[in-house]
């Protein structure tokens, strides 16, 4: 007799954790399967280890066990992600799929927590109104969202108050507060916690931006500034982005939603359990369960008529494809990601970049969304521009040296010992646009050690991406000059990487079953009882980080499953 479960959640990351919590609180018994390990308290407490987490990427899936391939176009043969495979001994964990194990990507994320603006939900209409219907190229598959900001506002609120976000509201029910974002859409109340203390160099950044006429405000953060619910106030240790948090200040589903679900007694977690197939009935129209490999590679089947797949946008689409659930050919299409245009500055005084979380930072949001001014470069949609004054340890810093300088020898040693303590970064998040050219499918050759096909990504940076990176580089250079930076350089444009940890779009949500994969609640059009959730649902990527929006969507999915909407 195969095992039966009332509900199965596959993947206990940002979205899976929320759904597991909501279902178990409502009395359902949930079996959660996660391919990663359950990280121990010991690992959390002593996480101050750059070799383990940065150089060896111990939290993220390794290409040797979880292969992903990439090619820039269909004429080129795909290879294992070349920017991450790198030299032996460094796996570049910041441009691979996110960390695994209960907690998922929120174990090692930075915690920049954003609501979209109202305009993000109408990107296509706004671009076409302003620049004409020809502005988007002929291969564009851009659509507006089937939900609006107003639909999601209660869920954004829930993320902030249930899970914990710190920040300064700028617009509570239309009443503006100049200390917060001048651009945010109406919110029903303040953040539950005040903003964090900012990292040392951020004062200089903020003052320079103000002198240049921008209206900077503080980055809203999924990092507790004070004790809040299960979170403790941040200690500003600086081993944050890419690391576990030793005080539980960083909002990870492992300590928020998953912990709350465990407390109900209704959640069973099986870690190191890798789902490889979603099973359906003979008609293919209803889900019947999943098959997974345990840590020893033994196959198990579990039956359920409710399966929530929350394995991140990439693995979600791979699982659907590997299970043959793709009747309309839309799974894996519309791949989108961010380019960062990472810039580095050397400041005239100590910035001590090893202190504070990544998000103890300020944001210039004047040029985001449809707020990007008319420009000669042809930029149709803007991006946030964020200071990165903290959270930088020496090994990572040594991987980002000014171009033209020899990376070894006395000159390098002098430069690095003089300037490490004076570094800071500024970056953007240029959203790529959905097009027929960029998609994911199953690699015809490469398989993992269980014989399962790898995901293959076909993506290149578009003219628009390159133009937007150039446009924003000038702005960042200007800010750096105003800050008195003694050195300034930018990452390559177009970037070498094609994964930013902000991949979305690969199982688009929509009302029309012909041109989307799931409905607005995340339920598969093709297969009843199968929910596929996360950033893969996004019709477009915004200039903001995606997680708070996919968390909001997860609450919406849970409400649907529980028949509240």
């Amino acid at each position, binding site marked *: 007799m195969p095992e039966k479960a009332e509900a199965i959640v596959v993947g206990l990351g940002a979205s899976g954790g929320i759904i597991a919590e909501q279902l178990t609180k409502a009395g359902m018994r949930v079996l959660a399967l996660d391919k990663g390990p359950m990280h121990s308290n010991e690992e959390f*407490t*002593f996480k*101050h*280890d*750059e*070799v383990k987490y940065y*150089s060896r990427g111990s939290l993220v899936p390794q290409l040797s066990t979880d292969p992903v391939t990439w090619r820039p176009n269909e004429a080129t043969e795909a290879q294992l992600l070349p920017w991450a495979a790198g*030299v*032996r*001994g*460094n796996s570049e964990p910041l441009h691979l799929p996110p960390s695994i194990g209960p907690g998922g990507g929120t174990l090692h994320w930075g915690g920049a927590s954003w609501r979209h603006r109202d305009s993000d939900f109408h990107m296509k209409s706004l671009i076409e109104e302003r620049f004409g219907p020809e502005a988007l190229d002929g291969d564009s598959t851009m659509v507006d969202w089937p939900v609006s900001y107003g639909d999601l506002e209660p869920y954004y609120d829930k993320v902030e108050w249930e899970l914990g976000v710190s920040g300064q509201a700028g617009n509570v029910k239309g009443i503006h507060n100049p200390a917060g974002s001048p651009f945010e859409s109406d919110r029903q109340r303040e953040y539950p916690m005040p903003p964090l*203390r900012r*990292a*040392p*160099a951020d*004062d*200089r950044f903020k003052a320079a931006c103000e002198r240049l006429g921008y209206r900077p405000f503080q980055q809203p953060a999924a990092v507790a500034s004070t004790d809040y619910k299960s979170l403790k106030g*941040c*200690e*500003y*240790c*600086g*081993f944050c982005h890419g690391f576990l948090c*030793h*005080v539980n200040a960083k909002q990870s589903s492992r300590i928020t939603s998953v912990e709350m679900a465990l407390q109900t007694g209704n959640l069973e977690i099986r870690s190191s359990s890798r789902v490889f197939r979603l099973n359906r009935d003979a008609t293919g129209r209803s889900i019947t369960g999943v098959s997974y490999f345990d840590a020893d590679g033994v196959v198990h089947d579990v039956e359920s008529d409710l399966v929530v797949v929350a394995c991140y946008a990439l693995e979600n689409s791979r699982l659907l494809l590997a299970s043959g659930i793709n009747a309309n050919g839309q799974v894996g299409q519309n791949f989108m990601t961010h380019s960062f245009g990472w810039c580095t500055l050397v400041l005239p*005084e*100590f*910035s*001590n970049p*090893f*202190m*504070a979380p990544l998000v103890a930072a300020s944001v210039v949001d004047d040029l985001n969304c449809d707020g990007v001014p008319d420009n000669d470069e042809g930029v149709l949609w803007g991006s946030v521009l964020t200071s990165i004054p903290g959270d930088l*340890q*020496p*090994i990572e810093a*040594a*991987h980002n040296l000014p171009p033209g300088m020899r*990376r*070894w*020898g*006395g000159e*390098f*040693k*002098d430069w*690095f*010992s003089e300037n*490490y*303590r004076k570094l800071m970064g500024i970056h953007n998040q240029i959203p790529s646009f959905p097009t027929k050219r960029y998609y994911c499918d199953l690699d015809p050759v490469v398989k993992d050690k269980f014989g399962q096909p790898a995901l293959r990504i076909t993506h290149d940076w578009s003219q628009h991406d390159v133009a937007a990176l150039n446009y924003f580089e000038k702005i960042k250079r200007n800010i750096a000059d105003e800050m008195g930076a003694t050195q300034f350089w930018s990452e390559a444009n177009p970037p070498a990487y094609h994964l930013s940890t902000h991949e979305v779009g690969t199982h688009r949500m929509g009302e029309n079953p012909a041109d989307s994969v799931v409905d607005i609640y995340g339920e598969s059009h093709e297969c009843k009882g199968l929910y596929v959730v996360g950033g893969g649902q996004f019709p477009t990527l915004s200039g903001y980080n995606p997680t708070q929006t996919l968390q909001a969507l997860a609450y919406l999915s849970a409400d649907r499953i529980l028949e509240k909407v």
Partner: protein
Amino acid sequence: MPPSSDTTVTQWQFLTQAEAETIEAVCERIFPNDDGRAGARDARVIVFIDRAAADEDEALRLCYREGVQALNAFSNDVYGSPFAKLSGDAADSLLERIENAESSTHPDVPHPLATFFALVWEHTIQGMFCDPKYGGNHDTLGWQLVGFPGAQWGYNAEQMKPGFDSTIIPIKSLEDLRNELRGANA
């Protein structure tokens, strides 16, 4: 010759003494001590590398083993002596040729050397700035050199003021953190 200035002989986990000497000579060109301030040899980067090679996979070990042979063959070809015996300038010019081969195909540079040098570079950086439990960053010399206070539970508002001189914060390693917790729980 021991890999660092003290007199204890290192028990290698993977490398042979001769391999250790060659690799350490490369590390020292990457992070030299020619100014009296800590370099790769002082920080015992080679101990880090030996342990990394022992702990990680076969491909990595092979890359070191074959790389050392190829480097010495190349060095013998060009200068008539093994790499560890070269002057600083001669060693640098050889490494420069190898590094340039990374970005273009140089028929005169043996194939595995570009990867080997990239690997030694990577591990030299890690060995300079790792937690000392990995064998490198001996006596936290790497961290002292750049002013990094190491494994801290956190920083307070005073320390987070712009321009604060972090070298007055006592450096801590993971072992110090463990001892503190043990002390607190005792």
